[in-house]
């Protein structure tokens, strides 16, 4: 992608759907399985990613003219790590119960390919406002994916939604086991591919 020529709304939409981190680009997959056994965890991590992605894109775009291309990777990493430390500390203070469960994954946001990819592909070449919007869109796309996956896994695996019990009886225990995470993401990804092929004439996901 070269210099941006899209309107802000198109940028936002592109990040949320067209280049959805998990279902279309198929990057940053680790959390999509690790923290989606309940909606609370999924939403918490999604919000953290929205914050980090927006701020990283903003900062990278702000200093893009000063960074020498040869050393950009370590610099981007440090910027990302800085924001992750901030959100890590905030959540460990104000969202203690959730943090106890997903703390490790919050810290792992540093190594998310999606955040680095947006900084490298978009923010390092574009102006501040479009960059921040692009980051926000891509973060929200990630959040939506987390909500969809954890919705099905929690509903089927525990019979609950956001901690409230909905279905009584024996839930499908496999859905909250590790294996169920892989199955859920695989099936959903196939489903979205099907929609894309059937109604929009797409070719399916990038197929890494």
């Amino acid at each position, binding site marked *: 992608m070269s210099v941006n020529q899209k309107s802000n709304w198109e940028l936002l939409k592109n990040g949320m759907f067209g280049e959805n981190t998990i279902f279309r680009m*198929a*990057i*940053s*997959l*680790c*959390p*999509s*399985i*690790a923290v989606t056994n309940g909606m609370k965890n999924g939403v918490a991590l999604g919000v953290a990613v929205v914050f980090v992605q927006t701020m990283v894109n903003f900062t990278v775009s702000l200093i893009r003219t000063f960074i020498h291309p040869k050393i950009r*990777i*370590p610099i981007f*990493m*440090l910027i990302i*790590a*800085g924001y*992750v*430390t901030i959100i*890590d*500390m905030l959540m460990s203070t104000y969202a203690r119960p959730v943090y106890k469960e997903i703390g*490790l994954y919050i*810290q*792992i946001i*540093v*190594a*998310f*390919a999606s955040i*680095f990819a947006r900084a490298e592909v978009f923010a390092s070449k574009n102006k501040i406002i479009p960059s921040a919007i692009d980051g926000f869109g891509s973060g929200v796309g990630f959040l939506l994916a987390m909500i969809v996956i954890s919705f099905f896994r929690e509903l089927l695996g525990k019979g609950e939604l956001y901690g409230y019990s909905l279905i009584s009886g024996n839930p499908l225990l*496999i859905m909250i*086991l*590790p*294996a*169920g*995470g*892989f*199955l859920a*993401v*695989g*099936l959903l*990804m*196939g*489903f979205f*591919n*099907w929609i894309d*092929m059937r109604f929009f004439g797409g070719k*399916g*996901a990038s*197929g*890494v």
Partner: protein
Amino acid sequence: MEFGKLFELVIAASLINNFVFTRFLGLCIFFGVSRKMETAVGMSITFTAVMVVSAALSWVVYNFVMVENAMFQGSPDLTFLKIIIFIGIVAAFVQSADTIMKKVSPTLYYKLGVYLALITTNCIILAVPLINAGENYSFFESIAFGLGSGLGFALALVIMASIREKLEIADVPAPFKGLPISFIIAGLIALAFTGFSGLITL
């Protein structure tokens, strides 16, 4: 130092708490390079080597620099900076390994260099130092944990690559081609790996 304990740690990290199948880390790389056996093996070798070295390096920095009173009496407690410092160590190490390898052994670089560049975006590389620091492992325990995680990742990658090579000629429904079916396979392998749980209780 007990060898039995270290061995247990390697087994636990590679099989029971396999990073890919029970902790879900390193999935991007896992799905990205498991299409061909050759790339999977290359990635496994590079990854295990980097893993061991970065576990050792970050242990040294953590215990001799970052912990309170580590450098000298009254030196500050820097553990809250562990995310930034660990990723810095890993990135710096990978970058220098890349440069040195290019100069010293171009053949090796030609084979494995591309994986080296990918490694920084692998979550496991950051998770291992963080877990080592959180569990207060000793130096050799950290190395054993790093080695075990590397081997576990290699095992997962090789299993997956061998299945995906067979899958090339299978008749998969069009929307499920590529990634979705790989996810479902990974789910089935993960189900098999739950059989290892309870093998050792640490």
